[in-house]
């Protein structure tokens, strides 16, 4: 299986279609983290991320012929399926569960390292900051959240993000820009985005 890790996704898929279990396992291990994290960041729910990850690969086992290489990479195809399932679950449930420790110390999900003994205050501040970012991301509208999660958190290229979201690269950039502006506004705390945008209105400076 060591040699399989260097094989491209599309080749692994073909081997998997031929019944190669090692190829399937390699492909799964390569792609499951990104899918799991994408759903986790989109929903904040570890059980949902687990379910969606399983659903995506079950669909790939059942019918892997649905993948068209001309329409994008296999990773983008799998993320697109994950997005589809996640949105379906989110529309059904409409309940988000925090993956970060709550104020009372309990955790919904996630494996977090204990506070650093050298500088516990700094560590607590960092965690507080992460929690705020998480809440801000979860509060974004879905189409902005998707762009932020894909491009900023998972460092997906604009092209792949466009393939996953089923839109143009320009739309991805626009959504990302708007989503980031909303995040800044939320992290600043209560200030309206329009006011913030006015504060940094590009027309103010023509130099």
């Amino acid at each position: 299986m060591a040699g399989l890790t260097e094989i491209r996704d599309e080749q692994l898929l073909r081997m998997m279609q031929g019944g190669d279990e090692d190829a399937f396992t390699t492909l799964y291990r390569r792609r499951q983290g990104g899918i799991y994290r994408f759903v986790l960041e989109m929903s904040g729910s570890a059980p949902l991320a687990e379910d969606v990850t399983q659903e995506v690969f079950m669909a790939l086992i059942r019918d892997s012929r649905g993948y068209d290489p001309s329409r994008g990479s296999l990773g983008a195809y799998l993320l697109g399926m994950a997005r589809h399932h996640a949105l379906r679950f989110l529309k059904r449930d409409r309940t988000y569960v925090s993956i970060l420790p709550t104020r009372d110390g309990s955790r919904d999900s996630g494996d977090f390292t204990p506070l650093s003994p050298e500088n516990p205050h700094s560590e607590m501040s960092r965690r507080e900051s992460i929690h705020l970012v998480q809440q801000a991301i979860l509060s974004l509208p879905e189409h902005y959240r998707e762009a932020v999660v894909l491009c900023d958190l998972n460092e997906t290229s604009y092209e792949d993000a466009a393939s996953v979201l089923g839109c143009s690269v320009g739309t991805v950039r626009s959504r990302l820009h708007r989503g980031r502006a909303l995040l800044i506004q939320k992290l600043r705390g209560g200030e309206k985005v329009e006011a913030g945008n006015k504060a940094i209105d590009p027309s103010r400076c023509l130099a």
Partner: protein
Amino acid sequence: MNCKDFESMIHEIVSRRAADKTKQLEALEHAGHCLWCALRLDEETKLTESLQGFARTLYVQRAPARVEEALVQAFRERTLGAAAPRFVLAAKRLWRRLSWGLVFAATVAAAWLVVLRTSSVHLRSSAPPRQVASNPPLASSEPSPAKQEQPFVPGQSERQVKAQSQGVQSQVAARSSDEPGAPPSRNRNPGASVLDHRQPDSGAQAASQGRAERAALDESANEVTTDFIPLGTCDDSECMDEAMLVRVTLPADALLAFGLPMDNDYATEELVQADVALGSDGVPLAIRFVN
């Protein structure tokens, strides 16, 4: 570069995605002397750092091992299920076709049986005995021997065929002239055959009828008859096609009336048997004597 251009590429600058290094340097130079763009760049940089910090905390997150186990198990089942039974699938397909063929054959056979049964019932019900249709006078004349005598009277006086109403015991043994092989029961007793046709046979009736038929056959095998002697009412053979025979008993001197010799042993009181061929209208067409 102005602030608008700076804003349009600020995300590429902070995420280091800008492909054009020259433009990136220009943007940073612009932020160096533009306060608003410098603040904007600072905001975006902090946001990016926060997002990257959040992403790092999640970077270790993976689906649990049980998901992989379940998927590998599903993959094995799918692979085995898809690869192994090609011949099983072919056999199933063949069996499905065979079963359809069997169903079709059974349907055709059932339809054929129904058609055969229907046609036989139809033939039995739509083909009444010809004698019954052609013998209403005989059937109606049977109860009275005197009436049986009547057909001989008109136009037969010159032949002196006299049937003594007292001595005549008409043994109605009608026998169709065009159906010599027909069952004797119909010929011997047309009235009974009418009843048989109208009423369903019972077991006792069938048994007695069978015995009568066998007796009639034995009797007819031992009989010696003369040729038919035409009575002058039938000039062609067509009228004989629908004729039926009626067995009558006549005085022995009737033989003389038809020009036949009569043994002296016969007394005038003796009776002889004769078959009279009756037309469909009841007119006697010919006669023969039976010994």
